């Protein structure tokens, strides 16, 4: 494994924070997308059902 010397903490935590934030952003984006798809599908189905 890579030896980061005395800056190990700084390097690891800044990379960690960035990756964590990006992963969070990805998860939120994904969940919102899935959610919106489902709700829209339900609404479109209701509309089709109404219009026969």
């Amino acid at each position, binding site marked *: 494994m890579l030896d980061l010397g005395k*800056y190990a903490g700084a390097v690891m935590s*800044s990379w960690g*924070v*960035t990756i964590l*934030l990006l992963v969070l*952003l990805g998860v939120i*984006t994904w969940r919102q997308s899935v959610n919106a798809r489902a709700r*829209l599908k339900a609404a479109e189905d209701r509309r089709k059902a109404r219009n026969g």
Partner: protein
Amino acid sequence: MTNAQRTKQADDRWNWLWEWANPVKFMALSGKVLPFAAAIAALTLVPGVIWGFFFTPEADKFGSSVKIIYVHVPTAMMAINIWVMMLVASLIWIVRRHQVSALAAKAAALIGMVMTLAALFTGAIWGEPMWGTYWAWDPRLTSFLILFLFYLGYMALWGAIENPDTAADLTAVLCIVGSVFALLSRYAVNFWNQGLHQGASLSLDKQENVSDVYWFPLVLTLVGFVALFVLLLLIRTRTEVRLRRLHALETRERMIDA
């Protein structure tokens, strides 16, 4: 040529572009582009990040902490550029009333805010070993904090207004006025305090041949972050288009039930 004809011709020349602002067409096209965007993001980001983290040497002044540059600089640049993109999208919405444009601005805001936060955190963490403090009221740091506040206000305004067209108009106005004041703040902050932060003149690429060692992976990660932004932006804009359609359907349902 009369003025009207001239505008007409200009319209024709750009029609191919504006047509994609139609929500249906946008959904079709973006659906096709999405896999490619994902591929490009993966192909640049993954090698860039691995190269930057594992295969770069220590620098004189920075030691191994120089590796932070691969998360700090891309996030910092994206944070600014995403705001500029939102400004352009807002202007397009105000001038040409293309719905997708407004929704894209809305979709970009969260990405921009996360980038700003990441730049702030990584910078602060880097500052501790370099300057001996997590935070100093350095102009560049300070203007980033202000940028964060602008993102916060912009998103809060979107969240507070129910009618999507009203929200699009008001946030666009806020974005435009806010940009002017953000720029003013940048100068004000510069005037107010001299800084510790690296100037662009010190940027690593301009120094001897060692710097290439840092420069190439940095460029790769930069491209990777841009691709990642495009990918996330497409997904999020598609979500916003869906939500907007959902809003239209639900309003309609309410009219039926009433």
